[in-house]
């Protein structure tokens, strides 16, 4: 076991970890942050998407040992004191979730996109979410919701989180 220290959702975490654990294992099993879902374990579905060092990535493919000194943002960390992030609100109001299993990963990927590019086109949104598989919605309302969130955030002049 190795000791690591890293930041999750703004809080410092100290943990003893095994080298073969992934960030997904740690989030779900050690930290009880079960909002991040496991859909395939091999990077094919992006349900486990988190924002790691500011970039969307599949937590199932990040090793425990790489986390030391780094920052992680998960679905549990994006609402501001109970107030929903604009992407979350848009997903709620536009029917962008059905079974909801892909939703946390989809939201994290969307937020990572909007943080990097505040004004993406619809094509750009589809490209950056292309790995996030959804079997329920056909993606139509998901893309609508991201467009609505984009517009809301541009209007608010929302700072990068």
């Amino acid at each position, binding site marked *: 076991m190795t000791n690591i220290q890293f930041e999750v959702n703004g809080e410092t975490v100290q943990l003893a970890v095994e080298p073969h654990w992934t960030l997904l294992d740690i989030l*779900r099993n050690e930290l*009880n*942050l*079960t*909002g*991040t*879902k*496991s*859909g*395939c*374990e*091999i990077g*094919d*579905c992006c*349900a486990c998407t988190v924002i790691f060092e500011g970039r969307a990535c599949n937590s199932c493919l990040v090793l425990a040992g790489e986390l030391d000194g780094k920052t992680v943002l*998960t*679905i*549990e960390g994006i*609402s501001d004191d109970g107030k*929903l992030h604009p992407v*979350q609100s848009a*997903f*709620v*109001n*536009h*029917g962008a*979730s*059905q*079974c*909801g*299993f*892909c*939703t*946390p990963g989809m*939201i994290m990927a969307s937020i990572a996109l909007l943080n990097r590019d505040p004004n993406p086109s619809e094509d750009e*949104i*589809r*490209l950056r*979410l*292309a*790995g*996030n*598989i*959804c*079997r*329920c*919605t*056909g*993606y*139509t*309302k*998901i*893309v609508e919701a991201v467009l609505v969130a984009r517009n809301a955030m541009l209007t608010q002049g929302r700072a990068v989180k």
Partner: protein
Amino acid sequence: MTKFFEIGKPTPRLDAIEQVTGKAQYLPDLKFPNMLYGAISRSKVAHGRIHNIDTHKAERVPGVKAVITSSDFSTARVGFFMEMANKECLVSDRVRFIGDDIAAIAAETQESAEEACSLIEVDLEPLPSVFDPEEALKENAPLIHEDSPGNIAGEIHKEFGDVAAGFAASDQVFESTYRTNAVAHCCLETRGALAIVDAHGRLTIWSSTQIPHVLREILSMTLNLPVGKIRVRKEYVGGGFGSRQSSDPNDIICALLAKKTKRPVRLIKSRFEEFTTDRARYPMIMTLKTGMSVDGHIRARQVNILTDAGAYHDQGIMITSHALGRISNCYRVPCAKLDAKVVFTNKVYGGAFRGYGNPQITFAIESQMDEIAEQLNIDPLDLRLKNACHEGDLTVSGARITSCGLTESLTRGASAANWKNKGLRKQKRGIGMACFVHSGGGSAGAHGGNFSSAFIKVEYDGSVDLMTGVPDAGQGSSTALALIAAEVIGIPVANVRVHSGDTGIVPVALGARGSRETFLGGNAVKLAAEDARHQLYTRAAAILDTTVDKLASAHGKIFIKSQPSKFITVAQAASKTMHEYAAAFPMGVPVIASACYTDPISEMADRTTGYGNLCPTYAFGTQVAEVEVDTDTGQVTVLHVIAAQDVGKAINPMAIEGQLEGSISQGIGFALTEQIIWENGVVRNPKLSAYNLPTPLDHSKVTSILIETNDPAGPFGAKGIGEAGLIPTAGAIANAIYDAVGVRIRELPITADKVLDALEKNQQQ
């Protein structure tokens, strides 16, 4: 025209906030103290006789608490129809597909469970195997089940009317063969179960199930426990699409491990296991024969189907037999016949998948309609309009069409697609249409009685708790039912809390299958809500000094219809504070109601002929697809799908659109890219990156047109449409491809290489 206050408006899911915040708990999120992790050791051989299973090495892995095989319990079987179920949860003497369940382990960690799995030693004598249903029917084919000679799982021969006479009276007869392949559900959450047996021997099991009450019954039978000692609970479920509407070895094995270890056990399939051992859509070879009069009327129809059942029974016979209704009930067909064989092969067995056999047969029917239209020189739209069923029809199979939006769906769909100007499209672009009929509201025949039930209690603050037997597997049934309750009682839908999926609390319903939830569940909720409303109105009438019939309610107020300014709130009527009216109703007595809605309409099919009105309502629709074909590569792009859908009544338009968009996406996958690829019984593409389901970049525009035909029996006129969207999509796409480039592909998926081959053949001719 009735005005509605709650239903009919686009309403976000009541549980969307839990979903978007990561608070929604799915089965893999549940943890219990002392919990063990399960794993299943599976056959690596497609067909073999087991001589011995050696579990010693597995048992010695540190952390392993139990290793079970079939010898640990009297043989438990799974299947949709228990009387013919032939899949043992853990096989005793024979394995029949790669992945067949041999032994199960429960251990302290997932790692040690999987390690123990790899150490199970099976002394297995391989037997010859057969993977193709046509091969399996041949005389010297390996026999998969001793009691199924010829590998025939079932045969169906049914006829309505006299098709021989019908064909004889036809001016032209059309016959062609269509094929579809196995398709995986690809639910984002893989199948799982979590079982706990308490000190009384009572079992609580969480399952990613669509059928909590039915699962309870199945567990009762297989585990020999009375239903009262079993509680099935369902948290959020990451998709179903029919994969979770039947029993599965996973649930039973999990319960057995929990019983043996006396500890909670969680057993979740990996994505690889999901692809290789979970039931898929039945592949079918369908030869469809239709007799036509020269002016375009259908005179007779006959279909011969060969269904690949895979290794064991599930619902192959039932699903195949439904084809007879489908060829009879969309268009006016005077006589119809079905001959079918359902055949075992050494592959994972098939199961229910959204549409229940209708996507396959409708692909055949609708492709052929266009082929017929061309030969008879009739526009495909006119051919369909000419033959369409109407409200009031009694079809040759006995279906009573009490509401029908087919004609309207055809005209509105065609108009939205600019059908008249289809010839003016760009080169290599084409449009095509397809219609369908689908049963709604469940049916008496399939599941015994056809009913649903609900409890309602009105809280002192005027909010409502709704306990419904209907489980929400993601399709939004809970919100739809809440809307119905809210509309009837007269409160905002946000004030309704829905409880479902726990057999210990909610009353019985038959589960999320057969598009029954809105219809049956909705009617049960409506009845219970009407009872609750009556109790509230009785109190309100006393307080407002009027009679019940003069009252109405909306937005949380109960008011006199002719003097809306005279009102009390629902909260006041429900509360215990109006003590000055204690004489009218005692303080604090709660408003509670219960109801069971039994579908009075559907009939059991006649045992011999299969005739009958098998379900209470029928949903119709038309889809028009626009495609573009790259004639150099054969690749097909779907640009736009217009779905004109008869919904009866749109209780929640947002949810219905979402269902249509999602199921059309599945339909496009079924049509163009999805198939499980086997080679000698091994699945070659058991990964989401190899299976080819649509990604966000594979989208096409979807336009939904919701048609309200106000079904006389549905709650507020609603029908069930959960399965509807994907049924006609493949037919519409196949027809659009023909319109674009003149090639007719009769096998799904219509992959680029098939299109390219067909284009080349066309050029050579």
